[in-house]
């Protein structure tokens, strides 16, 4: 929100000395892209030494709004959480420095680790499925083999525009055991009484909801990425007589691999922070979602539900470290693939 509103203000000052910035690279890049001789990121040349200083400060202006937001809403709260996690506040006896005691409690908590393993399992299933489905539809739309592609692309994107809370509430009603339409349909098809919220099916149910919500988003990014593949590359393949399947799987898929790696990473982090869907479901089906069903629910329930804010802060820090490790892993993979030179 504020990033967007901050943007115009940041652009304005660069208008004065800016020509070098705005026209320089753009002019160099423009023709290359429109002719489609190479993907855009190959055209960006490193600035020469003499000009680098004059180029640095507009960059800082552009980055500043994001850094301000990042500092205010990420770095400061994280620092506060770390600080908070070193204390223990009791109803009787007040607040006291307790060192790493909260971390010991979290690390030895079965509830917390059960939640971590559960979201990892969730991620291992949900992330590849989402991206595979998203890539399939993106490739179909990109190949132009279906009519009304634009219309269907929009339809596929709509679930992402529905807020997660609303989606979860909606699915809670749709999947209601015994009364929801899906439950009734399955019963009339002879599957018997299917309880989507039973302890066995609750995780697959959440996978289903999350895939429904996120496939359109992933598809849109993959579609844009596929569209940026120069047409003459595929034209050459078509002339050589390659079937569509080969073109998609052997040519296009490798070319959008950086995008897929990025999406895997984004989806993984999202999955580890799974919160909205299970917390809404727990309101409808309290028995289905336990206290520490996911690590974020554990954080919420200890901090807000039980008033143990310090313990919740410690759990949040541990979760942040786990996500940090996953990010580092993803970063290493992307670096090996030749990004971030």
């Amino acid at each position, binding site marked *: 929100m504020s990033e967007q509103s901050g943007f115009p203000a940041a652009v304005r000052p660069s208008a004065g000395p800016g020509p070098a910035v705005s026209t320089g690279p753009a002019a160099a890049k423009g023709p290359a892209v429109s002719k489609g001789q190479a993907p855009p990121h190959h055209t960006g040349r490193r600035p020469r030494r003499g000009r680098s200083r004059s180029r640095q400060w507009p960059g800082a202006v552009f980055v500043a709004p994001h850094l301000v937001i990042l500092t205010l809403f990420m770095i400061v709260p994280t620092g506060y959480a770390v600080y908070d996690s070193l204390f223990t506040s*009791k*109803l*009787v*006896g007040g607040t006291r420095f307790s060192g790493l005691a909260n971390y010991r409690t979290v690390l030895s908590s079965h509830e917390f680790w059960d939640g971590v393993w559960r979201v990892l399992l969730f991620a291992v299933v949900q992330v590849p499925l989402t991206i595979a489905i998203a890539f399939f539809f993106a490739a179909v739309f990109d190949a132009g083999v279906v009519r009304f592609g634009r219309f269907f692309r929009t339809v596929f994107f709509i679930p992402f525009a529905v*807020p997660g*809370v*609303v989606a979860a*509430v909606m699915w*809670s009603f749709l999947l*209601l*055991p*015994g*009364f929801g339409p899906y439950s009734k349909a399955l019963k009339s098809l002879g599957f018997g009484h299917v309880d989507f919220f*039973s*302890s066995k099916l609750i995780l697959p149910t959440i996978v289903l909801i999350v895939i429904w919500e996120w496939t359109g988003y992933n598809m849109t990014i993959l579609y844009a990425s596929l569209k940026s593949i120069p047409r003459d590359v595929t034209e050459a393949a078509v002339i050589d007589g390659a079937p569509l399947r080969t073109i998609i799987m052997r040519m296009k898929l490798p070319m959008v691999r950086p995008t897929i790696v990025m999406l895997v990473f984004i989806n993984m982090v999202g999955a580890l922070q799974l919160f909205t869907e299970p917390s*809404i479901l*727990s*309101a*409808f*089906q*309290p*028995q*289905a979602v*336990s*206290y*520490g069903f996911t690590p974020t629910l554990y954080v919420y*329930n200890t901090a*807000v*539900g*039980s*008033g*143990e804010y310090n313990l919740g802060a410690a759990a949040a820090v541990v979760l942040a470290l786990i996500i940090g490790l996953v990010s580092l892993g993803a970063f290493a993979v992307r670096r090996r693939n030749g990004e971030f030179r």
Partner: protein
Amino acid sequence: MRTSHGAGGSARRAFPGPGGRRLVGLTAAALVAVSAAACSSSPSTAGPGAASGGSASGAAGGSGCAANATPLTFWGWSAGYDLVVKEFNKTHPDVCVKLQNAGATTAEYVKLNDALKAGDGAPDVAQLEYFEVPSFEITHNLVDLSQYGVASSRADIAPAAWSQVSQGSALYAMPVDLGPLALYYNSKQFSAAGLTVPTTWDQFATAADKLHAADANAAITNFDPESTQDVLALMQQYGAFPFTYSGGTSVGINFTGAAQTAFANYWQGLIDKKEVTTASDFSPAQWANLDSGANAARLSPAWGPVGMQLSIKKTIGDWRAAPMPQAQAGQNLAGNWGGSTLAVVKGSKHAKQAAEFAQWFGGSADAWKILSGPVAGAFPGYVPLLNSPDFQNTTLPISSDAKSNAVFADAAQHLTQTQWPPIMTAALTQWTSTFAGVTKGTETLPQAFQTFQKQLSDYAKAQGFTVTAS
């Protein structure tokens, strides 16, 4: 997520049904309301109260107030509270109460806690359920109302309500409504099955056997192990209330004593024989069971029938109230599920006026005229109304011409006195996970009681309390 329902949402009713007396079902409804609020700018109203909400915007209170009136902020969520506030402002021109909906039950407590921690933004008066009063009392965040003469209302309030909000001569909140339990049974089904209304729990079990033997799909009632307040109310009525607390740093937690174990074994026995169902309270499944004959009775709080008659169709008119079955013949013990109080929050600049408002709200005929009306539908803890023939003769379509209020009012006078421990927020949060296995059939109720005993005791100790378990 921008859920700014604290500021502008004063008129919003967070959930359908009367009063903030149930947690689990309400969280869902509250979330729906919150989500709706977050995504649309139009005020969302839901529930039976909404239909008559002609004065929904009167909650802002700013309108009819004189310029020099003392301003009071009041956090509350129950349906109809806006109408009561409006009446107060009209009849008390020197005070101007502004009602804000800071969310229902836990949502409000969290906000109140945060505001108190921040030292800014707390209201003058807050709606608290009975069980939550000690949690705010132990952190010294409630004003002792006895210094403002509120104790003069004592004779007008049901003793069990009064005992839950007072410590010695100190009074930490003004009781408003109650939810005494009664056996609310389907009279047609009972006579068709040849059942007489049980007066003891033994007779109740025998009736359950007989009903289930005649029809394998019929269970006498529903027992939701995950509904903390429901189970605690039944334990209270059984003489097995697990908590003792009298202020200070010592708290009694007892889920494993003789009475508690007997209670757990009793219900587990009925669950094992499939003579009670274990649907979630207020779930569509529960309503369907009550309407289809799968449940022949409901152990209902006094505020229950109003919501129930909106949720069932076929059996409207068949339901009758009887006193709860007793653990021992000849006893007359009642249990209470729900009800709210009004507390004055420390830091209020106008504690005197706030106390005056709270006393009027829970202890005046003027307020109760509206509170017991069709919009609010609250069940009184206010004795003059409880005893009044008009109130006791009130009928509801669900019970045809039967006078259920008389049964509930009698129960309200026979509640065993209970003291909530100051750790109920955590108890409610942790309960559901621990008791979910009983619903699923992977553990028994006595086992869940054992687990919860340890869990809650550990929590209380970690919070610095001395725990006694006798």
